[in-house]
């Protein structure tokens, strides 16, 4: 049993080209950044960890999460949370409804939990708001809180800052990394932005496992 996310000789190829080759352990609370230009296999890696790799890719190796082998599990059973480039808030639910959607059914003090999460995100009292009326930064924060409320055992970040303007970026980076550290889960971030990688402060690799200095 080892806590954290373990990519055990993970190798993904399409046609003849190897896109991902990683042998890596991300401890709880640690942030590892995978950096590379677009088309370099970053999204392929996330899809593999998430469990929805498109047909046509060949994957070898295994993925372990807190000692569970999740390689063959469907997306819904993995307990891997992800934050996409776009926030993908559900437009038919309120901000509070989006968070309630993520909260496990066994939680009883739902309204209180949602209120606390919104406070923590600096969005106290936003429960009834229509997501469409939020700013980009606010939406990203709601999306992160939604991901965390589902109590994931690992967190994937897919270029989560690329849609934000420069001023917002620094603020969102520290917000997100602080929340992730509080949650005490292993974090795997992919980005093409050196600043993101620097701010994360952890190891930085390319998709083929070569350590990068940033």
């Amino acid at each position, binding site marked *: 049993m080892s806590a954290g996310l373990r990519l055990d000789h993970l190798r993904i190829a399409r046609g003849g080209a190897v896109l991902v080759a990683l042998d890596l352990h991300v401890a709880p609370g640690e942030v590892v950044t995978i950096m590379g230009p677009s088309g370099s296999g970053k999204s392929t890696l996330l899809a593999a960890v998430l469990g929805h790799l498109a047909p046509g890719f060949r994957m070898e190796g295994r993925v372990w999460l807190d000692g569970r082998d999740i390689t063959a599990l469907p*997306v819904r059973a993995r307990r891997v949370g992800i934050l996409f480039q776009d926030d993908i808030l*559900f437009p*038919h639910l309120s901000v509070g409804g989006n968070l309630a959607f993520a909260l496990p059914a066994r939680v009883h003090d739902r309204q209180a939990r949602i209120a606390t999460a919104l406070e923590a995100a600096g969005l106290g009292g936003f429960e009834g708001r229509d997501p469409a009326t939020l700013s980009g930064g606010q939406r990203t924060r709601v999306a992160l809180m939604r*991901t965390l409320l589902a109590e994931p055992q690992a967190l994937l970040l897919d270029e989560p800052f690329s849609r934000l303007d420069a001023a917002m970026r620094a603020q969102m980076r520290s917000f997100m990394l602080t929340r992730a550290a509080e949650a005490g889960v292993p974090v795997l971030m992919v980005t093409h932005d050196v600043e993101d990688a620097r701010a994360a402060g952890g190891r930085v690799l390319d998709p083929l496992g070569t350590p990068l200095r940033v």
Partner: protein
Amino acid sequence: MRRGAGWRPRSGWLVLAPVLTVALLAGPVLAGLAGVLLPAFGWLPALGGEGPTLAPWRALAEWPGLWPSLRLTLGTGFAATLISLGVTLLFVAGWQGTRSFAAVVRLLSPLLSVPHAAAAFGLAFLIAPSGWIARAVSPALTGWERPPDWLTVNDPAGLALILGLVVKEVPFLLLMTLAALGQADSRRSALVAQTLGYGRVAGWFKVVLPRVWPQLRLPVLAVLAYSLSVVDMALILGPTRPPTLAVQVLVWMGHPDLAFRFVAAAGAALMGLVVAGSLGVFWLGERGVARLGRAWAEAGGRGRGLDVVARPLGLGLAALAAGLVLAGLAGLMVWSVAGLWRFPEVWPQGLGLGTWARAAPGLWAAGATTALIGLVAVLVAVALVIGCLEAEDRAGGPPRRALWLIWLPLIVPQVAFLPGLQTLALVLGLDGGVAAVTAAHVVFVLPYVFLALADPWRAWDRRAGMVAAALGAGPWRVLWAVRLPMLLRPVLTAAAVGFAVSVAQYLPTLLIGGGRVSTLTTEAVALAAGANRRVIGVWAVAQMALPMLGFLIALAVPALVFARRRGMAA
């Protein structure tokens, strides 16, 4: 040209196209409703009705079959709609994005072109006591040496009718759902729900359905209106004593004593009320379900156990719907060439073209009429739709509000306004001939052509037009030399859809043609009362083959024209 709006030529007389279209769709519906309401209150001087009086309504109320017929109409209509919707949504929720999904969609899509009457006959041949299903298990499992004395077709509860409606409506709702899914960000939303731990089916219903529903609402209401008021399928599969209200109206319309026109008008008006009321009830129900659904979504239940039951059920039912239609069509074909075929035998003793040869003269005549009506109606409809879309484009801005009128002929039941049109024609002394029938077909063909063509038309890359305009081409030359050729495939597909709709029309052909215009569909449905399966097989196969021919041409022409243009490949 407007600044910043890109290349937009002026509309010119194209503005007439939408006006003409709306008039063409709304005019007959409104005139027909008037032609129903006036005699329903006793006013029809040509037949001695000087009204106003409630006598027609009293006559309707005194018909002993009224309440059973209404119960039957509502029961079959709602059951067929809810089951079709349930099967479609369950299937899409459980299987969107998988290979099984693609396979079943490929299987179901062509079934949309099968006329309702042909599908109904095929189903009847399958489930009849002497049908293929009974033969397949007899006498081995059942011990039957002769067909059991069961009423599986025309059963008094209308179960066969419900089944027939469901197998025809599932392909329609499925294609409508697919079109809506393309516009919502459905795949990523469903993925987010799954990363949060939701089962496929529960996640889809909670996050994708609420977003596709606005585009699905009108198609579902059209299915409800159609199911409540269907005539041809009800004549073939439905109960007889009493029949559904729509069929009874037709019976009264066809009564040799013209005095029955008054009670027929009251019945048609009641049919309109029944459909309007049902649409209202559905709409209220929808709001209630939406409210419960939101609470369900926010309660956070992951519903992963649901997948175990719901996914196989969804796939099984969708495949069953496709399988029943396909097996039914196969049955029609076999019967049409069957020689001696005694009961428990699964296959006829001999095959031959004798039935076809005997039916040939009638088939050719009716087939030619059907094709002529269909081609002219499609030509008019395609021209009007292209005119509307081009006018919309040149005017700029979002699609016109008035376009919801497109759905009018699909939602106002045929049996509620066509009798009125016939009555009006009678009063005005117009003789319903092929031309009148063709005009009536345009009303029903046009909406489908529009629905099939609007999306590809709007998705066209405008830059090609801008380049042509920059080279000096005027707007009409851009339309003829650039846009239409580039959109040849969707235009022909839309035309094939329209042709299939025209071929399948029963009530307009019968009522507007005054019973004197014979098409493949009117002839086939007329055979329902008789029992010669070989003849029915021949006519139903012909009725089904004609639309398929249309789709083949729509596939073949672009493939031939653009054989050497890889950029135009499908």
